[in-house]
């Protein structure tokens, strides 16, 4: 099965990267879910949360503070001004 190559980067460091099944993000226009094979997109993120469902293990919640994300060729890049992996959720 195809998988997504996810990379979450903040301004001064990489936050999370790995293979994933699904990515849910909250854009300025509303929620967007990305599955493998998604059409190329550049969207602006609203301040809030990004959920990544890795191939294995529990979901990763990332608090992103504005930014954008791009999807192409099953590669998802989430670029946030500031992002932290939210361990509490």
């Amino acid at each position, binding site marked *: 099965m195809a998988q997504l190559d996810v990379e979450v*980067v903040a301004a001064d460091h990489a936050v999370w990267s790995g293979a994933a099944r699904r990515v849910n993000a909250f854009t300025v226009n509303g929620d967007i879910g990305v599955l493998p094979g998604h059409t190329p997109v550049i969207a602006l993120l609203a301040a809030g949360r990004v959920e990544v469902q890795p191939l294995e293990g529990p979901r990763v919640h990332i608090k992103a503070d504005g930014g*954008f994300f791009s999807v192409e060729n099953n590669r998802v890049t989430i670029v946030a001004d500031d992002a932290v992996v939210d361990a509490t959720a």
Partner: protein
Amino acid sequence: MGAQIRVYRQKISSTSSMQKIFKAMELIATSRIGKARARVAASLPYAKAITRAVSAVASQSEVDHPLTREPETSTRSAVVICTSDRGLAGSYSSSVLKEAEELLTKLAAEGKQVDVYLYGRKAEAYFEFRGREYKRVWTGHTDEPLFETAKEIGAAVLEAFNTDTTAGGVDEIHLVYTQFKSMVVQEPNVVRLLPLEVVEEKVTENTADILPLYEYEPEPEQVLDALLPRYIDSRVFAALLQAAASELAARQRAMKTAGDNATELIKKYTRLRNNARQAEITQELTEIVAGADSLSS
């Protein structure tokens, strides 16, 4: 003890205490260079992603954005100069300032008025001492720049850029910083931040490099609106990080040279001290022999 020997002793002891300081500063710089370079590397993914996205939007959608529009005649420019806060880094700050002076002269020759923005206490001191005007100054973190500072600088220059030139705004922005090429080579560098020269999409053999046709959410204009300030911030931040790594490398090299020179100097003074001591002994002997001679005869 002879006065001369005492003078040399003092010189030796002060030089060796300075040598200890140089050594310590060299070690500190060495240990922090690694961290600074790691930060340069850590900021790369962000810079890459944002550059790619900006060039995708700018090259694929025919958007006419004020940040990318080339002015027909520019009359006012802004120059951001990145130096260090502290000295003892060899010619680090002065070579940046020299590069900046060249740029300022060039811009003035083109008939442009220049607003200067400074980063680092050395640049501030340079401009203060000469009684020259500058718009704003940021100091305090040149050896480990914060993203907040980059954002502030980005916001300040963007604001000036968005202001009309007749109202004190500028229509082009230059950035002078030191590029970290390697541990031994750091070069002062001038880049034009605005208007942006977005690299057009090139047709390459490598298919992975071709940008796909993106969909934009919301609209390309709004995406570009949101992306460009971030792109500027990221460019400024990258420059600051490079400058910090260069500063540390320059300091390490300067302190190494200073330490080596101190060793040389100590060696020289020790020789002179030994000479002086020997001369004193010889003189005393001569006096004793002369005294004994005059008694026996």
